[in-house]
């Protein structure tokens, strides 16, 4: 950890203790899955969003490792960071890397203030794990681009100001050629229809997004035309290696420790909890080493895939571990303990952890390619 990171940790903890005082466990349990625009604005005011972005665009100008400290403290406390999460994690860095000067000046300061919600338009109805088969097409017009097609499973599209979308713009020898990334203004572009999809927990967070002759300006293209695949691969290293890949259940885990202490749990529980803490500590060590590589300008896609594969398996195991160790069943009713309500939510949401951002099988395929086997 660099100098100053520990002081920063103290600042973040103090901020969160205050900002989360009245946020119930059922919302904290969701953590980066929960959108709370007011909270995001407070985070922005405190300077905790865009921490590693350049100061000239309103960022904090600090290191990736310092940003890591802010993220992990937010996750450990169960801060509802979903509103600004994608912008801070990947869309901001993408725009900083590939966007025009004008675009950076327009968008990045607003991200840092916690005002903007981004969504990521990748999956399509017939293109999930096989992302390179996507068909939504952006065709050149005299003044820009015309888009037709459908994105699906787009988290937060119904709340977002912007989408970073991957569209087909050409054909190549390989299917992953001819793809390009675009910045789509969801609030002011005609021809876009957003339909929320209810999930098995009854929540609306992901969506179907239809593009019907949607017209984008010339400068909506981000980065190089037809080079979208390489850009997306870089972006996914950011998306896959962070602490949100093993801390999604941490608010519940923390509460579980309290329940076990209160019940004076014995050695069976202690051994299981100790094993989980060891997994958590080791995953954190892996994730930190990826953050250090990002800081030195590398794009560690292989290590990122390992963190996500092992990390999501760990966080998925927490609700089940809780049920094994304590005879308090998950319950959604208002009269149930906050712990039971949180357990209910996380039990239902856990299967999604290894789906979002690439399934385990796909990640292990990426690792195998990195090992030279494919």
């Amino acid at each position: 950890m660099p100098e100053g990171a520990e002081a920063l940790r103290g600042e973040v903890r103090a901020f969160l203790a205050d900002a989360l005082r009245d946020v119930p466990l059922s919302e904290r349990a969701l953590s980066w899955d929960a959108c709370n625009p007011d909270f995001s604005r407070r985070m922005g005011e405190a300077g905790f969003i865009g921490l590693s972005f350049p100061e000239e665009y309103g960022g904090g100008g600090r290191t990736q490792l310092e940003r890591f400290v802010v993220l992990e403290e937010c996750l450990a406390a169960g801060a509802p960071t979903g509103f600004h999460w994608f912008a801070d994690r990947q869309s901001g860095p993408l725009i900083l890397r590939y966007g025009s000067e004008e675009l950076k000046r327009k968008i990045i300061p607003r991200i840092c203030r916690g005002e903007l919600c981004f969504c990521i338009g990748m999956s399509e109805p017939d293109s999930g794990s096989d992302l390179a088969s996507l068909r939504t097409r952006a065709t050149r017009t005299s003044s820009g681009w015309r888009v037709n097609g459908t994105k699906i499973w787009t988290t937060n599209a119904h709340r977002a100001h912007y989408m970073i979308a991957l569209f087909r713009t050409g054909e190549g020898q390989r299917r992953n050629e001819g793809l390009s990334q675009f910045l789509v203004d969801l609030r002011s572009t005609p021809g876009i229809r957003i339909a929320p999809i209810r999930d098995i927990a009854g929540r609306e967070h992901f969506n179907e997004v239809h593009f019907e002759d949607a017209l984008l300006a010339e400068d909506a293209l981000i980065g190089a035309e037809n080079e979208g695949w390489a850009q997306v691969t870089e972006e996914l290293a950011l998306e896959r290696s962070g602490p949100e890949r093993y801390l999604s259940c941490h608010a519940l885990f923390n509460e579980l420790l309290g329940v076990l202490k209160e019940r004076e749990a014995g050695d069976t529980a202690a051994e299981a909890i100790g094993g989980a803490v060891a997994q958590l500590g080791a995953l954190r060590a892996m994730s930190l080493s990826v953050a250090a590589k990002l800081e030195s300008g590398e794009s560690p896609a292989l290590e990122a895939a390992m963190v996500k594969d092992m990390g999501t398996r760990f966080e998925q195991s927490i609700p089940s571990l809780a049920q094994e160790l304590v005879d308090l069943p998950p319950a959604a009713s208002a009269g149930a303990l906050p712990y039971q309500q949180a357990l209910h939510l996380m039990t239902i949401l856990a299967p999604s952890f290894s789906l979002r951002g690439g399934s385990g099988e796909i990640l292990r395929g990426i690792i195998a390619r990195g090992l030279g086997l494919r």
Partner: protein
Amino acid sequence: MTSDSLLLDTVERLFSELLTPEYLAGAERSGAGEFLALAGEIGLDTVLVGQEEGGYGGSWSDAFVIAEACGRHAAPGHLPEIMVRRGMGESAEQAERRSGSLPLPAGALLRSAQMAGAAQALLERSVRYCGEREQFGRPVGRFQAVQQQLAELAGYAACMQAASRRAFAEVQRHGMPAGEDDPAWLAVAIAKCRCSELAHPVTQIAHGVHGAIGFTEEFGLQFFSLPLWRWRAEYGRHTDWALAIGRRAIADGPNATWAALTR
């Protein structure tokens, strides 16, 4: 002090030239004398001894490099233990004579690095073998079922490396822990807990993808799998460490474990 990578280069050169499969097979009978003498000549045994006392003046990160390489190259003898005992102020003779047992945290720390090294060696050998061995008309590494296994093995090996490396860094920062209340204790406990637990899947996958040839004495996979099976119980099994970590986590209650992990 020299950088990690310079030391690593030196160690790699010596170990890979000397510790060939033929040498390792012979060393089981002839002992570790020659290897230890050569390691001593370039100062690997005194890496933790201060320069003013005639040592190398290195850090615990350097000690990780050496202990990990010992596991990865199946180094004979007890160089890691000797290195730690010399660092505790013992003479070369004392250190060699008493190399067998170390205080629990120091022993667990060393074993984690050796185990991470052995796991890395099993990964590298497994990937190489699956790229060469053909069945059904193609290298077995072309099959998705095998690829998924090797990807899992790679993740476990990376996990062991990261947990062990962090424990060494924490010992460098806070000093060798004597007990649970010392700041570096949790990182050491986590490293040995994870490495011991992962010894099982790592060896199962490595032997599994090798088939019968990996089970022969001649092939040499046992230079890495036998130590892993032995080391997983030395200086605490994963269950012993998990119990200690977990008792503490429950006694301390919410938030305290997170605070300890991020201290």
